[in-house]
């Protein structure tokens, strides 16, 4: 007898494709939020798979805080062009022109204005009723209870006490005008699953994930890369070349590198299995206070 059984990755892939198609079928105006990170890259490939041989029926939107690594922006534009994606890039331009940035305003204000507010602005501007995100439940404690279809009120806010029950693979996609749903198709993937999938599917990712000699400044234990001349001169002057890679990608002044020799996916996984620091600790924004991610989610951040 043939055994009809899927590997865990194929099962997770089938689940994600089902979720992505369900959103395309049920919503009028969905969008896929694209952070240029590895999780986003996996999600984008899953969307391409879901509608093959057709084109994906919704755009990608990148919330550009204007402080992303230059390599990210370059990668984003090339990927969208080569794969025929409709890419929307949205920034909080009025705040940018007013000079908001992490060096001048601190991580908290910058993140709120250039990321959270910019995201809400972008979603409202295009009247998206559903937005895909690449968050995973294993990333952080408050995400473990997040639904796959996560309801947001008309202020884009999340109420952890008032989540819709979610059973089997039947998703409730009903919203009133102005309300929306955030959808997390790779909720059930772990960090290892993501790397394994990138490896098997040969998904292109930003080179910053791989170890290389980079100009690095040690800021209170965070290894910050000098990516452009907006870093204060006295800070940038302390830079030295170090062999590092990034476990997560975001705004360059807020994303710490880790010292590493891992320049292939296999070596990254090997390092991950032996190094015992979970991935979000390299994001400076999480340190503010305990439960800070939950607080940000309530306010509308992913």
């Amino acid at each position, binding site marked *: 007898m043939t055994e009809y059984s899927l*590997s865990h990755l194929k099962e997770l892939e089938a689940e994600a494709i089902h979720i992505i198609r369900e959103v395309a079928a049920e919503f009028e105006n969905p969008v896929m939020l694209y952070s240029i990170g590895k999780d986003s890259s996996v999600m984008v490939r899953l969307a391409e798979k879901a509608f093959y041989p057709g084109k994906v029926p919704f755009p990608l939107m990148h919330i550009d805080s204007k402080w992303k690594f230059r390599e990210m922006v370059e990668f984003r534009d090339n990927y969208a062009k080569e794969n025929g994606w409709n890419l929307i890039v949205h920034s909080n331009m009025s705040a940018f022109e007013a000079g908001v940035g992490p060096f001048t305003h601190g991580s908290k204000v910058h993140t709120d204005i250039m990321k959270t507010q910019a995201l809400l602005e972008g979603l409202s501007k295009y009247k998206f009723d559903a937005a895909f995100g690449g968050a995973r439940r294993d990333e952080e404690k408050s995400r473990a209870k997040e639904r796959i279809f996560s309801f947001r009120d008309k202020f884009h806010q999340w109420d952890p006490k008032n989540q819709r029950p979610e059973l*089997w693979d039947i998703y409730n996609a009903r919203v009133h005008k102005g309300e929306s749903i955030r959808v997390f198709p790779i909720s059930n993937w772990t960090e290892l699953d993501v790397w394994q999938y990138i490896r098997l599917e040969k998904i292109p990712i930003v080179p910053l994930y791989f170890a290389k000699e980079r100009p690095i400044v040690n800021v209170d234990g965070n290894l910050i890369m000098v990516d452009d001349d907006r870093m204060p001169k006295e800070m940038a002057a302390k830079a030295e070349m170090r062999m590092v890679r990034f476990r997560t990608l975001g705004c360059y002044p807020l994303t710490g590198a880790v010292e590493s020799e891992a320049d292939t996916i296999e070596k990254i996984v090997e390092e991950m299995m032996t190094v015992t620091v979970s991935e979000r600790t390299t994001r400076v924004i999480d340190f503010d206070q305990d439960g800070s991610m939950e607080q940000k989610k309530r306010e509308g951040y992913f």
Partner: protein
Amino acid sequence: MTTPTLDIYSYLDQDEKKDLLRLLTAGSVDDGKSTLIGRLLFDSKKIYEDQLSALERDSKRVGHAGEEIDYALLLDGLKAEREQGITIDVAYRYFSTNKRKFIIADTPGHTQYTRNMVTGASTANLAIILIDATKGVITQTRRHTFLVSMLGIKHVVLAVNKMDLVNYDQKVFDEICAEYKAFITQLDVPDVNFIPISALKGENLVEPTTLMPWYHGKSMLEFLESVHISSDRNFDDMRFPVQYVLRPDLDFRGFSARVASGIIRKGEKIMVLPSRKTSTIKEIITYDGNLDEAFPPQSVTITLEDEIDISRGDMIVYPDNLPRVERHFEAMLVWMDEKPMDPCVQLFLKHANNTTRVRFDKIQYKIDVNSLQKSSVNHFELNEIGRVVLTTNKAIFFDPYKKNRSTGSFILIDPITHNTVAVGMIIDKLNSEDLPSKIVDEKTLEANKSLIHRGECLVSDAQREKRYNQKGTTIWITGLHGSGKNELAFTLEKELFDQGATVVLLDGSSIRSGLSNELDFSPADRAEHLRRVAHISKLLNDQGIITICSFISPDESIRKQVIQIIGEDRFNLIYMDASLEFCKKNKPELYEKFEQGLIENIPGADLPFTVPENPTLVLKPENRAQNTKTILEYMADLKIFPIV
């Protein structure tokens, strides 16, 4: 530059082939459930160092485990509940071993959280039910087992925890197992297993036990790694519920879905429901290449040899193995909403990529999850479970949940709040003798007639006319929603009453709140509703009473049916001739709701409304003051009232 060791390649190659086991843990904090999960995560090296240090900090602040590390704190995600010390939602945890990947749905055990347990169970292959060895089988154990069985989980592990507190005594374990076996045999769980453990001490969790030499079975993790689950799915009944129609260009028409059950094969003849058109599978397409066959839970796209009209919600099946195609069925329902059920309100039912309206015909019983006692109720509250009869607006394609989890499950959505208010598992279609009484075929009707003997009436029509000074007559007012029918009807009733007539007013809201409360606004149910009204009116007219009937009655065939029942000679049709614009202004809330898609079946909007061919009178709502007078004059002229 270093080269990765060979180990990592072989690790990744092996990892790629692992399958996935989704499991549910049920039990309360007191049973050591969180400690068990924390241990499994910890021992499988999933807990990272920084999470651990945060944990040590948290344990000192709010921990309930004294000086030891409180593994439970790893699991409680949200701030509020961490402080309260209870888990109030389903949390998903991930870990893997060398053999398998695991997703744990961690659900709390308190009575009020049946809803969460049901949620976690809906996707699980296996359930671990925790028992405290010092307490044995308790009410909560029975409740968890009942829910697990109702949700169709095929593998149950009874984890008898805290064996360290009973000196790892075999007798305690055996007694608990015997008691549990006696209970679970009444339910429908094919695979039941018993494992003695101590979560706190880590005994018999990962490594085989050394302290319980009398136990010869597998440790908890060994068991979870080896339990065979791939044959649990239904591979017999092919169901492909179309989720998305893929039309990138005019030449390509693909139908995308997850295979719900069975094996879909290239070249096989298929049938599409509800159209019952047939064709042959041409290709099974995926991004990674075409397949000869696909099985659950794969997500694929198929093309057919013939061009058939297929949309989302249709189901592709093999012609020799059809699901039920029914509007009436029975189901076990779990009420999930804070707001209690209102059995008169229609909801949306979402099932197999299909959404339709649904109403409750009957609540058979409520089942108490603790005692399994059945009782009769007229509605459900949050966390209550019971058996109901449902009728959908359009037929759905289903199998009993026991046979097919994918095509036997549904959710109910409130049309106003849009909350998921209930979930259900279909038992089966309803036996024909139990169907709601409105479904009557010609044969039964004839048979009924021969059984009923009409008594002889001793009061003549003439005597009644003399007594009431009126002729038993129906004044039937037709018109759109908001055309002013009811206003006219009530004014007319008042005038007639004041002048001494004996009159009864029948309108939509009074009949629908009682006699027709199981009917909706679809054309079929509307016809049935008006048939009932016509019979009431006829009975009253027979008794010499004047009736004023205010109903939209949108099409000529319905009106003809009504006339036939009441009798042409005493039927008077008044047509309120109002434009749609007037009606929208008059009843703005209703038409706004319609525009928002909250309600449907509105004659004149999404349903046709035909202007009557030969009305007795045509009135304009703008002439409000004149209209009642016109009717009264008409009635006087024809000597309907007053006769003298």
